[in-house]
C-alpha cells in the first residue's frame, strides 16, 4: 500500500475513534450541567448525586475525547502536508480560533469542576460545567465550519499556488457548515440521551436505586425526544443543501444513476456499480426523492452518470451508510417518544421489555453518528476539498509508507488499549451506581483562606 492509502486508513481510524467520545461529551455535558443547576437551585441532594454519578462517566469519556483530539490537529500536518499547505490560509484559522476560544475554556473549567468542590461557590461550580458544555459545543462549531468549508468551499480565490481566503464572513455564514454543526450537535445529544436512558434502564431492571434512575431516565427521555426530532429535521435541510452543493454525493447517497425529474423514493434499492444501474428498485413513493432533494416533488436530480467515473464517490458505502443512518434516526424518534410517554405516565418500571430494548440501544446512536460521517467524508471523494483539491494530491510528500505503517500500527494498538480501559471504567462505574456518601463535597469546609 502507498502512503496515500495508509494515511487515509489512519485518518479514518483516528477520526472515527475520536468521534466515539465527542458526541457523548456534547450531550452529557449539558445533562450534567442541568442536573447540577437543579441541585444549586433546589438544594435537593438527589440532584447532587446525579451530578456526581453521571459526571464521573462524563469525565472518563471526556478524557479520551481530549487526548484523541490532539491527534487530529497533529495529523493534518503530519500526513496531509500538501493539503495543509494548499488550504492552510483558510483552514488554519478556524482551528486556531477553536483552540483559543473553546479549548482553553473547556480545559481550564474542567479542572475547576473536578477539583473545585468546596473551593468555589456552588453557583460558580455549576457555572464551570456549563462553561465546559458551552466550550465543547463551541469547539464543534469551529471544526464543523472548517469541515463545512471542505464540503462547500466559499470566500476564497486560487492564487500564489494555493487557496487564499478573501471573505472570512463567507466561511462564518456558510450554510453547509451551520447545518452540519446542528446536525452533528443534535446527534451528540441523542447519543447522550440514549446513554443515560440505557444505563438507567439497566438499573431499573436490576431494581437498584429506582427513584434515582427513574428521574435520570425522565430527564434523558425529554432531552432525547427533542434532540431526535431536531436531528431529523435539520438532517432533512442538510440533505437539500447536499443536493444543491454536492450533487455527486447526493446521487451516491440515494444511488441515482440517470438524471431525471420527479424521482420516486424506492424503499428497496440494490446498486449495481459495475453496470451503472440499480439491479433492484422497488416499493417506490412517487416524487418523494425529488421532494427530499429539493423540497419539490418535480425537481430534477443529477444522476451519477453525469460525472466521469473517477469523479464519483464510492457508491455502495455512501448509499448503505446513508440508509442506515436515516433508518436509525427514525427509530430514535420512535424509541424516545415511547420512553417519554412511559416516563411521564410512570409506567417505566413495569415495561421490562422496553427497558431491555433501551439498554441494548445504547450503541445505536453511536453507530448512526459514525455512518453519518462516512456519508459526509466518503461521499465527498475523490475530493478532499470539494471541487478544489483531490485527496490524492493532499498527502504529505515527505512521508514514507514505512512511517505510516508504523504510526498506523501504533495508533491501532494504543487506541485498542484505550478502548478496553474506557469500556472497563465505564462499566465499572455505571454498574456501581450513585455514591451515597457526599460528605467529601458538602461536608464542613476545611478552614481554607478565602
Amino acid at each position, binding site marked *: 500500500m502507498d502512503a496515500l492509502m495508509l494515511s487515509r486508513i489512519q485518518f479514518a481510524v483516528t477520526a472515527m475513534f475520536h468521534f466515539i467520545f465527542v458526541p457523548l461529551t456534547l450531550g452529557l455535558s449539558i445533562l450534567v450541567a442541568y442536573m447540577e443547576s437543579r441541585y444549586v437551585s433546589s438544594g435537593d441532594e438527589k440532584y447532587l448525586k446525579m451530578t456526581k454519578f453521571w459526571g464521573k462517566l462524563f469525565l472518563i469519556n471526556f478524557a479520551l475525547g481530549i487526548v484523541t483530539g*490532539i491527534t487530529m490537529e*497533529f495529523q493534518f*500536518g503530519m500526513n496531509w502536508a500538501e493539503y495543509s499547505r494548499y488550504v*492552510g490560509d483558510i483552514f488554519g484559522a478556524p482551528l486556531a480560533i477553536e483552540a483559543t476560544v473553546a479549548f482553553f*475554556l473547556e480545559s481550564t473549567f474542567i479542572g475547576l469542576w*473536578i477539583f473545585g*468542590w468546596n473551593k468555589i461557590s456552588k453557583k460558580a461550580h455549576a457555572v464551570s460545567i456549563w462553561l465546559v458544555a458551552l466550550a465543547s459545543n463551541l469547539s464543534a462549531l469551529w471544526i464543523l465550519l472548517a469541515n463545512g468549508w471542505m464540503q462547500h468551499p466559499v470566500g476564497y480565490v486560487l492564487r500564489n499556488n494555493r487557496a487564499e481566503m478573501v471573505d472570512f464572513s463567507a466561511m462564518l455564514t456558510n450554510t453547509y457548515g451551520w447545518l452540519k454543526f446542528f446536525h452533528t450537535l443534535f446527534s451528540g445529544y441523542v447519543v447522550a440521551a440514549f446513554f443515560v436512558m440505557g444505563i438507567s434502564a439497566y438499573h431499573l431492571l436490576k431494581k437498584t436505586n429506582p427513584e434515582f434512575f427513574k428521574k435520570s431516565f425522565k430527564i434523558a427521555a425529554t432531552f432525547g425526544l427533542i434532540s431526535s426530532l431536531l436531528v431529523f429535521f435539520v438532517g432533512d435541510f442538510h440533505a437539500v443543501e447536499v443536493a444543491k452543493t454536492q450533487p455527486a454525493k447526493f446521487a451516491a447517497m440515494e444511488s441515482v444513476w440517470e438524471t431525471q425529474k420527479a424521482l420516486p423514493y424506492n424503499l428497496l434499492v440494490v446498486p449495481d456499480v459495475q453496470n451503472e444501474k440499480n439491479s433492484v428498485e422497488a416499493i417506490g413513493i412517487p416524487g418523494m426523492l425529488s421532494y427530499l432533494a429539493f423540497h419539490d416533488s418535480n425537481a430534477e436530480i443529477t444522476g451519477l452518470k453525469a460525472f466521469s467515473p473517477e469523479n464519483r464517490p464510492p457508491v455502495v458505502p455512501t448509499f448503505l451508510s446513508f440508509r442506515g443512518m436515516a433508518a436509525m434516526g427514525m427509530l430514535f424518534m420512535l424509541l424516545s417518544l415511547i420512553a417519554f410517554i412511559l416516563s411521564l405516565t410512570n409506567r417505566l418500571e413495569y415495561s421490562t421489555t422496553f427497558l431491555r430494548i433501551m439498554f441494548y440501544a445504547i450503541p445505536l446512536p453511536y453507530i448512526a453518528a459514525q455512518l453519518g460521517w462516512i456519508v459526509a467524508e466518503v461521499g465527498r471523494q475523490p475530493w478532499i476539498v470539494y471541487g478544489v483539491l483531490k485527496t490524492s494530491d493532499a498527502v504529505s510528500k515527505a512521508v514514507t509508507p514505512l512511517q505510516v505503517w508504523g504510526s498506523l500500527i501504533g495508533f491501532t494498538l494504543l487506541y485498542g488499549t484505550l478502548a478496553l*480501559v474506557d469500556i472497563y*471504567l465505564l462499566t465499572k462505574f455505571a454498574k456501581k451506581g450513585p455514591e451515597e456518601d457526599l460528605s467529601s463535597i458538602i461536608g464542613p469546609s476545611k478552614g481554607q483562606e478565602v
Partner: protein
Amino acid sequence: MEFQIIWFILWGLLWAVYFMLDGFDFGAGILLGVLGKNENERRTIIHTIGPVWNGNEVWLITAGGATFAAFPTTYALMFSYLYTALLLVLFSLIFRGVAMEFRGMGSTEKWKKNWDRTLIVSSFLPALLFGVAFGNIFKGLPMDANGYHGNLFTLLNPYGLLTGLLFVLLFLVHGSLWISLKTEGDLGARASALAGKVWFVLLVVAVSFLVYTAFVTNLYANYLNNFVWFLFPGLAVFSLLGIKLFVSKGKGLAAFYASCLTILMVTFTGVIGLFPNLIPSSMDPNYSLTIYNSSSSVYTLRIMTVVALVFVPVVIAYQIWSYRVFRRKLTVDETSQEKGSY
C-alpha cells in the same frame, strides 16, 4: 509593524508560555517516583498539577493551531518532516492525559503503579523531544529543492540531544520548585532541596548549550547585528542565577518566578536568533522557511490578529483566576482523605 512580524512574536510567545506552564507539569510528572515516596505523596504531587495541567497543554494546541493559521507552509513541512518524532510526542501526550485522569479510578496497587510509570515516561519523553526538535530547528533541518533529507536518527545529533537535555533539566528544576511551592512539610522541603541540586547540572548544561550554539548554529548573527537583543539571553542567565539565590534563601515563590522567567527567556533567546526564519535550512538558505515565504495572506493574518487580541487576554485572565483558586498549599494528609478527584 508587518503582520508577519506580529505573528512571529506571537508564535514565539505561545511556545514560551507553553514551556513555562506545561514545563512544571512535565517536571512534576518525571519526579513523581523520585519525590513521591508513597501513594499519598504521589497523589499529592499529581494533585498540585491536576487542576491546571489541562489548561496548560492547550497552549501547545494553540501554538500548533497558530502555526497552521499564520504559517501554513511551515506547519505542513515541519509536521511531515518531523513525523516520527512528533508521533512519539503525540503518543506521550495521550498516555500522559489518560494516566492523569484514570490513575485515581482504579483501586488496586497495580493499577496505580502502572499509571504512575506511564506518567513518568510520558512526561519525560515530550520534554526531551521538544528540546531535540527545537535544537534541530535552531541548527536548521537538512532540506532543499528535493525536500527533507533527515529522519528520527539524524535529529538525535549531539546538539539536538544537548538541547533536549537542557529542556529536561529546566523542567526538572521548574517542576520541583512547583512541588515545593504547592506542598507543605517534608515533601515540599525535599522538592526544594532537589531543585537546588539539579540546578548545578542545569547551569553546566546551559553554559555548554550557549557555547555550543555559537559553533553549530547561526543564532548569534542577529545578536551581533544589534546588541540590544543580548538583553534576552542576559536576562535568561540572570534569572537562572536568581533561582539558586532564592532557593538558598528559602524564598519558594520568588525561585519559581525566576524559573518561569528563565524558561521564557531561553525560548525567546532561540526565537530571536531564528528571525526571520521559522525553520532554517542547513543545506541551502534559499530553502529556509521564513515568516515571509511560509506565511498566510495578510488578510488571514489580520483576522487572526484581531482574534488573538480579543481572546488571548480573556484566556489569560481566567487562567490566572483558576491558579488563584488553587493557590493554597496541599498537605499529604488532606489529599489522602479527598475523594472524587484524581
